[in-house]
Structures are given as structure tokens and as C-alpha cells.
């Protein structure tokens, strides 16, 4: 098949496995149980069935349990929404959380908050599941034995006396990077009480390099704030701005805004990506250059030299050519950056060394971008990440200088560099206090363990990346009496056990100084932020020499031995391991590789072929005397010689979901090679391991599914995406005349493939988690999948992303084959799915050309722990075994919007009803609403010239349609790009 777009290497090579997956609706063995059912279990099951059958004749008694004293404001059955904040290192997301009778169930972004803008990300969506994690730590532990917080307070008070006597000489606190006024105040108090104590930060993946680089360039550490929306030319250097970056919501919104095209006359920004791994940002770039991570400093030096030659006033020395970088490419990039002075943006990723970040800051300053597309602000109230602090701490621990170490969040015994010997050094201290959500790897080594409260259980505050202040407001009392970070820090600082509310309010009495504190405080709680507290960017006086430094850094890396390199990337799903016990995230397919429940070693097909490796072959990877065995997965478009390892897997103390999933990449990570390791050897281990990938699932054969064109082509032929096929039907078609008629338009030009919609759908619609084995059999339940297509050659592919929910066809093929009318149409154009009628023939799924129906092969929710049931949306049925299910356009939200409008005595208006995916999408790529309302956003989008329907030739008349994607290649390079003209599949 000479497809221009392909889903996987398997499809391109037409491998038998890939063909089998495409040809069969349900994979071989899809109807088999996960493990052979023994005769004994079978008899047991039969017995249980018989006894249940006997009971069925009597009406089961059901209880109604009302409140004793009704809480004010709670009306049973009516969800309430509260603003709160999810702190995330030195940034924070403002959220609005839905609560049903006091139990938080669904998270949305806060429209007023500058970091979330009403949208969210996959991680933000999934954070509600962590609250109900049944494996959360539930008690204070003293040497592994249950104790109480009062005992801990007493023990700490005793120790504190001794430490206070010598100014905290032998006391250290290891904290996560923070940005919170209250914590900053308490840490300052702590330093006052113990002036000689160490306060060190450690996070396995952080902006430490960026901060160090900016400090080198500007003379002091400043936090960068990028404004992607204002940039017309963007260069991402090993930077995953649109996915792994903590500010991905704001960046994605800005990126989509800079590229939103309403008609052929509109302009688009241009994204250039230089990277070793295939990232979401690379997949969305107009020009992507694959380059091993260690050559990126050299690329920066070469770019600087080129810019200087082209007239930019910088002190860049002449640079030699970088292998793999064509002069024409570099020239076009330089030209684009220079043409957009003041509206261009250069960003380097956290993996790149400080020298690169310094040079990037200097480039941005020279290009006039500082103050427009990028700001560098003072890190007020922040506890900044530092890369080296942990090493010094371990040295002191090992030397026996520290008696007490408090680990304030984080899991360093798992994620500290392997060569530091952190776990061994812990034994030298008298007392190790671990504060965390789980009895994890670090808690197992600690003498005290204090359970931490989830952010939905805590009072706190935070500054967003731009500096905007907001309050972390709890929605529920701690489920297990856990303590918030503010409370524990307060205890450490002052020795007093004060409630978090008091501590936070004490800070805010200073922030909201003046009259009417209560009123203004309540306003902050209500709005979820204190407006106009963003910190303006500082003036950047760049010191000279940054480019010479990056050139010498490049030289040092170029002379590193070996042709292979390991690049460590934080899994964008698991946050370096903290979310490893989150089933939604584990089962979420990786945005590019589509792997679930695993972290294989990623490499380019050529790198694998040179060593005779195929997908799922286990290799022994050695670096710096340490080794790790894990399976290989080939990813097209990666730099040759680059091996990518995801951090966050291979946990041993994560809990029932995360234990033993994947491989612990921290085992190979050293303090010197936190981001990159070059002394690497790779040998086949002679075994194979199974990977659960979803990329072959739900294939729609080689049709024109993705449609894209260059902006130039679009200007010449605006209707390049539309179909001209005449369609006719065999029967009289139903007319849809009443209001509303629901419809959805997904703008592929805005979608970046970030997965936020997919998790939002899972959270809203009680979609179950099925596990790795079931995913391998093609039984994953996601109602909204994101198809990722590669385009072009295996070596230099582009990528395209397509979210595929149910199309809600007007002529739905599924409805015609259902023998029991369990799937039927309603008057508003919804293809309704009636679970209680479904008998599980699966004919509908067989007849669905879009492959969006999911079948409950098992009672996937049967063994759900009680506490985990609390996360379910009470407005949506929890489906049973043997029932088909699929996207309903969030019919529960439509219903409640209609009733709300009716009771308010008005017509339904645009925006009243929003689907979960639409609300979550940071790119605003999903429009939904009433197609009969011609003024609605969805109706306007549907009538745009880029609109097309998937498989329109089948005359299914889908209600969900797509807007074709546009690329904006540089005129000098346009011919070389895979998407030159408006053609989709061959």
C-alpha cells in the first residue's frame, strides 16, 4: 500500500499482525476470558447464578439515607462547583471542580485563570482520580507501625528543641519546587528558627537548566513566561511546548490562536522544531528537523552564527557546519526569525544544558522578543528547582553530618540519580521524616511517614507561571485525616500545629491588606484568583559570551564517545512517577507511540535495523556500569542513534495499579547525566516482551481520512477538502427540523493531539479502565480516541492527529443492524445508545465504519474498590458486562442544559450545552452546539470551506465533521515537505 498517511510501521510494512488487526472487528481470542476458567470456578459461578436467580423474584430493599442535619447550600442531586487551584511546581492551574453531595467528581479549567483559561490537560483531568486512589497512605507510620499525627507532633517538638539549640546544624529539608506565598512565608520562618539548616529542592524533571541558563545570561535567576499567541515564528529546540511543558494549556491555546484560519485571507504562525525524540510539538511543526539531543547546542551555535552573518547584532563566533543540518534549512529558519523580530520566539527544552538556555535568552533579547513573546520575571515566592542541591545533601548525609532529614513531598529514594546512593545515605541519619501521598519507596526507608492530603483536601495558595495569585480551596475534608503541605511546613517552621486555613489566611491578610478583608477573601475564593497579580517581566540585560559558551558546550558534547545517546524524558502522563497509580493515565495511549501501560526504549527504525532489532525485542541497555533490560519500540522520525527512555515507570511501591508497570529508567540516570547519557551500549537479550499499543486498533482502512494542505494551496483552492461525490439513499430520509439539532466540528488545524479530551471523556462518562492484557486484545474502552497518522517517509515523517468520537451519523449503519433496537436515533440527531436494551450481539460495532463503539467484554467495574466508586459521575450509567457503549455527545449535559433553559424560561443558547471534550480542549479545536442556530459557533465552523466529513462517500451523514489541517511551510522549503498540496490518501 502506497499510502501517503500511515498509522504505524506495521501498516507501512503490511505485517501479518497489522493486517489481522485491521481485518477483524474483534481480535482473535477477543471472546476468551483473560485466564482459563477452571472447572471449579465455573461451578462456583453457576452456583452463584442459580442463587441470584432465586432471589430475583423478590423486590430488593433499597434504603434512602437522608442527612441528619442538612448542610446549608447543598441540594441533593444538584452538583455544585467551586474554584480551586492545582499547584504544579513553580506553576499552577486554576480550576473549577464539580462536586456531587460533597464528593468532587469532575475537574474543569477556570475561565478566569490565565494558566488554564477554562481548559485543562490530561493530567489535570486525571488528578481527581488520585483523590480516591485506594492505595493512598491512610495513617501516620512510625517505623512502619501505625501511629498518630499527635505522636508525630510530640516527637517533632522534642527533636526541634535539640535542633534549635545549634541553629539546625544537623537538620535538612528536601522539598519539591514550589511557588506559593504561604509556603514561602513558612520557609522563611523555618530559616529564621533554624538559620543553619539546609532547605534543598529536588524534582526529577524540572526547569533547573533553564533557570541556570537564564541566571548565566541575566545575572540572576528569572522565570521565563512564553506568549506563544503573539509569536509568528516559533523555534522549539528539543522543547515540547505543546505537551510535556507545565504551561501546555496556555501554550496550546496560544498556538491554536496564532494559527486559526477562518478564510483564505488569514495568516498563520510558523513552528520550527529541532528535536531528537518525536514529540507532539514536533508533530505539529511546519518544519521538523531530527537531530540527536547532543548536537542541539551545536545547532544553536550554528544558528547564532548564521543570524549574525545575516545581520543580527550578536557576539556569536563563527561556527562549523552541524552534521544533519542543511544550510538551506538553517538559512530559511534564520530568515524567518529575522523577518519576525519582536514576534518570534525561541524556546529550549528542559533537557538542554544551561548554556543553550543562556544562548536562547540572548537570541530572544537580540531578536527583540523580550517583553512581547517572552518575558523573564522575578521568581517571587518561589522555591526554585536546583539540579545540584540533592548531590550536596547526599554528601552531607553520607558524612553523618545530618541527624534529621525531612522529605517534604516527592519520592527521592525512587527518582534520585542512581549514582548518588541516596537510599544508602539515608541510613546515616537518625530520623527520616517522609511526607507523601503513598507509602512509597522513600516512605519504606523513613522512620516517620506522614500522609499528605490531596489538593482537593487542602488549603493552600499558589502563583501561576505568570505570577497570578490564587487559593487552593478544599472541596472535601481529608478522607484519611491527612495533612496538607502548608500544615506540615507550618509545624516544621514554628513547632505549632495550626490548621491550614489559618496559615493561608494569615498570609492573605498581608496580600489583601486594607479594609473588608472577609469580603475580598471570599471574592478570591469565589473567582479562584486575585486579578492583576501577574508579575511583569524584568528588563533583561544579557551578559556577553553566551554564544561562545554554547559553542564550547557543543564541542564538549561532540567529542563525547559512542554513537548512541540516551535521552531521559519525563513521561508526560505520569509526571516522573508521581501519577503511576492512576489507571486513567496508565491506560491513556502515549500521544505519539500509542503505547499504554509501558515505557519501551524508543529508537528510530534505522537504529533498530542496524542492530537487528524488531519491536518488542528485549535489549540489555548499559550505561555508566548500570544496566536495564527492556523492550524496544521503533518510532519513525526519531534521530538516529538516540534512545529515548520515559521516566516514571517500574515502580515497586506505587500501589495496585502502578506496581511493576514498565521499567525503571532512573536506574540508568546519573547526577552528571540527568538529561543525556552518551556512554551507551545496547545488546539483544534474546527475549521478547509484550507491548499494548492501540495504534493499529480501530483502523479505517486507507481512505482520505486526514485532509491537509499548505496555506498557499488553500489560498488557491479554498475548497480543497470538500467532497463532490453525489450521494443518494435507498430509503426516504428522516428530516430533522426541530431545534436543537446537535452537531460537532473538530478543527484539525487546531488539534495538537494532547489527549486532554480523551481523559475528560473518561472522567465525565465513567469509562472503565481495562488493563494491559485487555488493551492488547483491542478491548480498550475509550469513547474518544485520537488517531495519530504519520505522513511522508519513515525517516522524516510528519504527523497528523485526529480525535475520533462517535460521528452521530444521521444514516447510522449501527442502527440498521441492531436486532433489539438498542441503538436508535432521537429527534435531536443523537444516535442514542440504550444500555438496558443491549443484548451484546456486537453487530453494531461490526457495521460501524468509524470503529467507535466499545464493548464491555467483562464486568470491568465489578472489583472497583468502594472508595474508587466515589469518582463516578452519578448522571451516567455504569455499564455492565455484555453491553455496547459509545460517545453520546454527553447527553446528560445536554439534558440538564435543556432543563435549565426551560426552567429559566428562555431558549437554549449557544454555549449552554458543552461536551466534556469540548470544555477540556486547550486548543478550542472542538466546537459543539445546535446546527439549526445559524449564529452558533458550530454552525459557522460547519459551513467553513475546510469542512469535510469522514467517509462521506458512505452517505452516513455524520453530525461530527472535521476542518482540514493547514501547514505553513517556509516558501524556500515548501517543495521538500510531505504536505505540498491538498491531497489526502492516494
Amino acid at each position, binding site marked *: 500500500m502506497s499510502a501517503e498517511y500511515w498509522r504505524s510501521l506495521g501498516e507501512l510494512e503490511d505485517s501479518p499482525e497489522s493486517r489481522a488487526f485491521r481485518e477483524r472487528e474483534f481480535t482473535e481470542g477477543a471472546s476468551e476470558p483473560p485466564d482459563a476458567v477452571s472447572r471449579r470456578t465455573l461451578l462456583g459461578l453457576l452456583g452463584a447464578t442459580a442463587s441470584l436467580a432465586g432471589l430475583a423474584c423478590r*423486590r430488593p*430493599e*433499597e*434504603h*434512602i*439515607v*437522608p*442527612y*441528619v*442535619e*442538612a448542610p446549608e447550600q447543598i*441540594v*441533593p*442531586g*444538584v452538583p455544585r462547583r467551586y474554584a480551586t487551584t492545582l499547584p504544579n511546581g513553580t506553576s499552577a492551574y486554576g480550576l473549577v471542580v464539580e462536586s456531587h453531595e460533597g464528593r468532587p467528581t469532575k475537574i474543569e479549567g477556570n475561565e478566569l485563570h490565565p494558566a488554564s483559561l477554562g481548559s485543562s490537560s490530561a493530567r489535570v483531568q486525571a488528578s481527581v482520580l488520585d483523590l480516591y486512589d485506594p492505595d493512598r497512605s491512610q495513617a501516620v507510620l512510625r517505623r512502619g507501625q501505625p501511629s498518630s499525627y499527635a505522636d508525630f507532633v510530640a516527637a517533632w517538638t522534642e527533636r526541634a528543641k535539640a535542633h534549635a539549640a545549634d541553629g539546625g546544624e544537623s537538620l535538612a529539608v528536601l522539598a519539591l519546587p514550589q511557588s506559593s506565598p504561604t509556603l514561602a512565608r513558612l520557609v522563611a520562618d523555618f530559616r529564621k528558627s533554624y538559620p543553619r539548616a539546609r532547605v534543598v529542592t529536588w524534582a526529577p524533571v524540572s526547569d533547573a537548566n533553564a533557570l541556570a541558563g537564564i541566571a548565566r545570561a541575566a545575572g540572576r535567576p528569572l522565570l521565563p513566561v512564553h506568549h506563544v499567541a503573539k509569536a509568528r515564528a516559533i523555534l522549539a529546540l528539543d522543547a515540547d511546548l505543546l505537551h510535556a511543558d507545565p504551561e501546555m494549556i496556555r501554550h496550546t491555546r496560544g498556538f491554536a490562536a496564532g494559527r486559526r484560519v477562518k478564510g483564505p485571507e488569514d495568516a498563520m504562525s510558523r513552528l520550527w522544531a529541532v528535536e531528537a525524540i518525536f514529540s507532539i510539538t514536533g508533530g505539529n511543526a511546519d518544519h521538523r528537523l531530527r537531530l540527536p539531543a547532543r548536537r542541539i547546542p551545536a545547532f544553536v551555535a550554528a544558528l547564532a552564527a548564521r543570524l549574525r552573518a545575516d545581520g543580527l547584532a550578536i557576539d556569536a563566533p563563527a561556527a562549523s557546519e552541524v552534521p544533519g543540518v542543511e544550510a538551506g534549512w538553517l538559512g530559511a529558519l534564520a530568515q524567518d526569525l529575522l523577518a519576525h523580530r519582536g514576534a518570534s520566539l525561541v524556546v529550549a527544552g528542559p533537557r538542554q544544558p544551561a548554556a543553550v538556555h543562556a544562548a536562547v535568552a540572548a537570541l530572544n533579547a537580540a531578536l527583540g522578543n523580550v517583553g512581547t513573546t517572552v518575558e523573564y520575571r522575578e521568581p517571587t515566592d518561589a522555591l526554585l528547582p536546583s539540579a545540584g542541591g540533592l548531590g550536596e545533601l547526599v554528601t552531607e548525609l553520607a558524612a553523618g553530618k545530618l541527624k534529621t532529614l525531612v522529605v517534604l513531598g516527592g519520592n527521592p529514594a525512587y527518582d534520585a540519580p542512581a549514582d548518588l546512593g541516596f537510599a544508602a545515605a539515608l541510613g546515616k541519619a537518625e530520623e527520616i521524616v517522609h511526607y507523601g501521598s503513598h507509602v512509597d519507596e522513600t516512605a519504606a526507608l523513613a522512620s516517620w511517614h506522614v500522609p499528605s492530603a490531596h489538593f482537593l483536601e487542602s488549603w493552600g495558595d499558589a502563583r501561576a507561571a505568570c505570577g497570578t495569585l490564587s487559593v487552593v480551596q478544599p472541596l472535601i475534608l481529608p478522607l484519611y485525616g491527612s495533612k496538607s503541605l502548608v500544615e506540615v511546613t507550618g509545624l516544621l517552621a514554628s513547632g505549632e500545629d495550626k490548621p491550614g486555613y489559618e496559615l493561608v489566611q494569615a498570609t492573605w491578610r498581608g496580600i489583601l491588606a486594607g479594609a473588608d478583608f472577609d469580603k475580598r477573601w471570599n471574592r478570591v475564593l469565589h473567582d479562584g484568583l486575585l486579578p492583576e497579580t501577574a508579575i511583569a517581566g524584568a528588563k533583561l540585560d544579557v551578559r556577553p559570551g553566551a554564544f561562545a559558551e554554547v559553542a564550547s558546550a557543543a564541542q564538549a558534547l561532540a567529542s563525547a564517545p559512542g554513537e548512541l545517546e540516551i535521552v531521559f524524558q519525563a513521561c508526560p502522563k505520569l509526571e516522573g512517577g508521581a501519577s503511576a497509580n492512576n489507571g486513567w493515565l496508565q491506560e491513556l495511549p502515549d500521544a505519539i507511540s500509542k503505547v499504554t501501560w509501558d515505557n519501551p526504549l524508543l529508537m528510530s527504525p534505522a537504529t533498530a535495523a542496524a542492530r537487528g532489532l524488531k519491536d518488542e525485542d528485549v535489549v540489555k541497555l548499559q550505561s555508566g556500569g548500570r544496566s536495564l533490560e527492556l523492550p524496544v519500540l521503533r518510532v519513525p522520525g526519531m534521530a538516529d542513534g538516540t534512545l529515548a527512555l520515559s521516566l516514571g515507570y517500574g515502580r515497586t511501591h506505587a500501589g495496585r495499579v502502578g506496581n511493576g508497570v514498565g521499567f525503571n529508567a532512573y536506574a540508568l540516570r546519573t547526577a552528571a547525566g540527568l538529561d543525556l547519557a552518551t556512554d551507551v551500549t545496547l545488546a539483544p537479550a534474546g527475549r521478547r516482551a509484550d507491548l499494548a499499543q492501540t495504534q493499529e486498533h480501530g483502523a479505517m482502512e486507507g481512505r482520505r481520512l486526514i485532509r491537509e494542505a499548505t496555506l498557499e494551496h488553500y489560498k488557491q483552492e479554498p475548497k480543497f477538502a470538500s467532497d463532490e461525490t453525489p450521494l443518494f439513499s435507498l430509503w426516504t430520509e428522516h428530516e430533522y427540523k426541530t431545534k436543537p439539532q446537535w452537531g460537532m466540528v473538530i478543527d484539525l488545524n487546531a488539534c495538537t493531539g494532547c489527549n486532554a479530551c480523551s481523559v475528560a471523556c473518561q472522567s465525565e462518562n465513567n469509562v472503565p479502565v481495562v488493563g494491559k492484557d485487555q488493551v492488547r486484545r483491542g478491548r480498550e474502552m475509550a469513547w474518544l480516541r485520537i488517531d495519530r497518522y504519520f505522513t511522508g517517509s519513515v525517516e522524516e515523517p510528519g504527523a497528523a492527529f485526529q480525535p475520533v468520537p462517535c460521528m452521530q451519523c444521521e444514516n447510522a449503519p449501527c442502527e440498521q443492524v441492531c436486532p433489539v433496537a438498542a441503538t*436508535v*436515533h*432521537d*429527534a*435531536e440527531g*443523537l444516535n*442514542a445508545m*440504550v*444500555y*438496558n*436494551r443491549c443484548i451484546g450481539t456486537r453487530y453494531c460495532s461490526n457495521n460501524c465504519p468509524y470503529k467507535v463503539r466499545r464493548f464491555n467484554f467483562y464486568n470491568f467495574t465489578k472489583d472497583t474498590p468502594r472508595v474508587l466508586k466515589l469518582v463516578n459521575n452519578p*448522571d*451516567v*450509567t455504569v455499564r455492565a458486562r455484555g453491553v455496547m457503549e459509545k460517545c*453520546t455527545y454527553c*447527553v*446528560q449535559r445536554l*439534558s440538564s442544559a435543556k*432543563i435549565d433553559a*426551560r*426552567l429559566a*424560561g428562555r431558549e437554549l443558547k449557544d454555549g449552554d450545552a458543552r461536551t466534556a471534550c469540548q470544555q477540556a480542549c486547550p486548543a478550542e479545536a472542538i466546537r459543539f452546539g445546535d446546527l439549526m442556530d445559524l449564529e452558533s459557533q458550530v454552525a459557522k465552523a460547519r459551513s467553513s470551506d475546510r469542512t469535510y466529513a469522514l467517509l462521506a462517500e458512505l452517505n452516513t451523514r455524520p453530525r461530527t465533521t472535521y476542518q482540514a489541517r493547514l501547514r505553513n511551510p517556509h516558501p524556500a522549503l515548501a517543495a521538500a515537505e510531505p504536505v505540498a498540496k491538498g491531497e489526502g490518501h492516494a
Partner: protein
Amino acid sequence: MAQIFPQSANKFPLVLALAGVVLPAAAVGFVWYYFSPRFTDVGYQPVQPVPYSHKLHAGEMQIDCRYCHASVERSAVANVPPTQACMNCHLLVARQAESLAPIRDSLKNGVPMRWLRVHKLGEYAYFNHRAHVASGVGCVSCHGRVDEMEVVRQVEPLSMSWCLDCHRNPEPHLRPLAEVTNMGWKPARDPQARARQLEGLRPVKPPVDCSGCHR
């Protein structure tokens, strides 16, 4: 040659015919009625932990339904009142009544009452009280004359066909919003008077599609 079949064998076809028609018909009829909500659900009258009398409270004393079931106009569910609501009156009235001991204990110990649910729909059906009450459907239409019941029982089948009967022809069941909780209210016979009764109601368009209730 002796006859193979005895004389009585002549009746076989008749017996077979009878058995073939009557027995299946009986079986169908049996299932039709005895498995239906009309038999299984109507009349369900569980014994509640406290012998609360709707007849006394709602009937004789004329307490409005919404005094206790306060969320009916605002929520999908019509709440069962918190213990506190009982004690609003019973702190003053019948303070020492034997039958009220569980209520007093509940308030004292903070342990909620466990009432037995009488009106129950399948969990796949999402009924919304708020929408019905706001459209002018009286409580009595589904719950019957609760004001005349000593112990509440189910009087309607609450089956899907019963729901749809009204959804397809809602007009006879509508009443002025002020009369929604009035158990004894009767629609006027005279068409003009009836029209006046329904003046001011929102036009109703109850859903008859599956997605109206099932999701």
C-alpha cells in the same frame, strides 16, 4: 390383526390441540401479568423504621409536600427530609412519643435514618422531578393520593409504557403550577375552564426518544 391404538387414542389430537393452545396461552398470560410492574410493583408497601403517616401530616394537617421534600423544584431528586426537619416540629409536638424514638436517636447520635425506598425506577432511567414539577405535573399523578395513605405504597406501575402514555399525551395530566402539590385538585370538565386552568403554563414537549431518560 389387533388394533395398534386403543379406542382412547382418538382423543389424543384433541388433547394435543388443547395443550398446544391453552398451555402456551396460559403461560404467556401468566408472564404477561405476574411479571409486569402492574403486579410486582403496584401495592409495594414496605414497613418503614418509623410509622410516619402521610395521611396525618399531608392529609389532616395539610402540610405542603415541599415542606419536607424541599428539593423537588430544584433538583432531579425529591429529597427525603433530614432528621432535623422532623424535629423542627417534634421538639414541641409529641416530644416523648414512643414511635419517634428512632428520630430522636438519629439527631442525638448523628446517625442518619434509613428509610425504605418505595418508588423506584431502573437505575438506567434518569427521572427528573424538577422538570416535571415545573411543567405542571402534579405529585398525585405518579404518587397517588399520598395524603390518604397511612403507610405509603406504590399505586402506579412506574413502567416505561406508563411513562410514555403521559409523555405522548401530557395535556390531561397538567395543572396550574400553584396546584402541583394539591392532592385533591381536579381538572375542570368544561373545555373553556380547562383552557383557563392551563393558561400560563410553559408549552410542554416531553421527550419520547430513548435519550430523554436513558444515558
